[in-house]
């Protein structure tokens, strides 16, 4: 979990992210077509990467929430990180759903299938959306942080149970399964593209997290300032009248 401090950090992160991402796109789009999936296997450079970033985002929200709840490590920063990571998580989870659904197209020719992985991603998205909705409810920042932290932990607890439920349901029950993992004898360049994608999207996530936390902090400071100004004005009015 990084604290947003200097621009030097985000500039170097951003630069690295852009470089890695560009390389990923170039490498990914120039991958050869495979026999099973034609050009769709080129998505291997993108889909696992955004999925990985989505999982990281979810995990960071959970860990930051736990750190906030423990009195010894409680700090405003962890609450901001939890919220920021969840918002970024929504973006990556949505992308995971989109790329996953596109990847399934050659096999089914439709936009959505209830394959285990897509179903789990959809559930993850709903958990995150609910969490963000809770954060929007106006309240004292500490109260809101407390509530959100608990919801984050409750949401994380269900993930393993969810995983088995959906896996058993969709994998054993139906013969369909979206085979998005490359077969073992896939060429090294596919693996390389996937790894590069993982790296690139991790860097993008980190850059987004740092900026999102900083934005949250600044906006909070703005609100506090505005509140202080308003209180001051009322006090002055009262003095004039009184």
């Amino acid at each position: 979990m990084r604290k947003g401090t200097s621009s030097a950090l985000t500039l170097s992160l951003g630069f690295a992210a852009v470089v890695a991402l560009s390389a990923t796109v170039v490498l990914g789009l120039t991958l050869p077509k495979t026999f099973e999936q034609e050009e769709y296997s080129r998505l291997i450079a993108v889909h696992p990467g955004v999925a990985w970033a989505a999982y990281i985002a979810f995990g960071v929200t959970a860990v930051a929430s736990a750190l906030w709840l423990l009195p010894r490590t409680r700090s405003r920063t962890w609450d901001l990180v939890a919220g920021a990571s969840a918002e970024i998580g929504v973006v990556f989870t949505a992308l995971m759903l989109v790329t996953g659904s596109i990847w399934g197209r050659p096999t089914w020719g439709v936009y959505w299938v209830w394959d285990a992985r897509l179903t789990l991603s959809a559930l993850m998205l709903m958990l995150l959306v609910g969490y963000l909705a809770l954060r929007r409810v106006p309240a004292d920042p500490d109260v809101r942080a407390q509530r959100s932290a608990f919801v984050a932990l409750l949401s994380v607890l269900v993930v393993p149970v969810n995983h088995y439920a959906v896996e058993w349901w969709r994998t054993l029950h139906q013969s369909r399964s979206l085979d998005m993992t490359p077969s073992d004898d896939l060429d090294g360049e596919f693996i390389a593209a996937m790894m590069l994608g993982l790296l690139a999207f991790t860097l993008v996530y980190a850059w987004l997290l740092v900026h999102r936390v900083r934005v949250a902090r600044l906006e909070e400071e703005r609100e506090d300032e505005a509140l202080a100004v308003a209180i001051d004005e009322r006090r002055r009015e009262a003095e004039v009248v009184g």
Partner: protein
Amino acid sequence: MWRDALAVAGKDLRIERRSRVGLQQIVPFAVLVIVLFAFALDPDRGVLVQAAAGLFWIAVLFSTLLAVQRSQAIEGADGVRDATLLSGLDPSGVFLGKAIAVAVQLLLLEVVLAAGVVVLYDVDVEGIGTLAITAVAATVGLAAVGSLYGALATGLHVRETLLPLLLLPVVAPVLIAATRASESALADTTFEVAPADWVGLLAVFAVVYVAFGLVAYGSLLED
């Protein structure tokens, strides 16, 4: 802790017996949902009978939302916060008590609803033992996680819209597992995963959230 739990559960159930909100509002609501499904899915097309288990559990999930909201509402405007903090009761006991009360009400509702589904959807039940065990395992989990989220959403103006959004994704595995296990107890169904596995999953879910509630309910209520 158990003494406090039984005291709270007893109080909640006594309130229900007097006010009969569950009986007069929640049960009819559940039956209404079942009936609406019949309108939507057209009994003549045979879909209804195939989907019966799933529709039953969806109706139960919606009823859980109502039951949990009601469980919070009877504590007054500030909900369960006052009841616990001011009364000196053990928070874990309060959690257990409220969850037990919700579970009892849900189980009774499920009996009525099951009868309704059997009659209205023309379903053949073969494994009533399986159904019973499934229902108990699922209900304990629903009551526990529902009481947790209910306490979290206490006092929020947007509770009515927020609670479903928060709770329903979390109980998705319960829906999946309970439906699969229930389906195996109905006639003419084949299954690849043994009902015992599904019930095991329901049990794990229940244990996880009961444990979390016992440990965290107190701090959950602190401001």
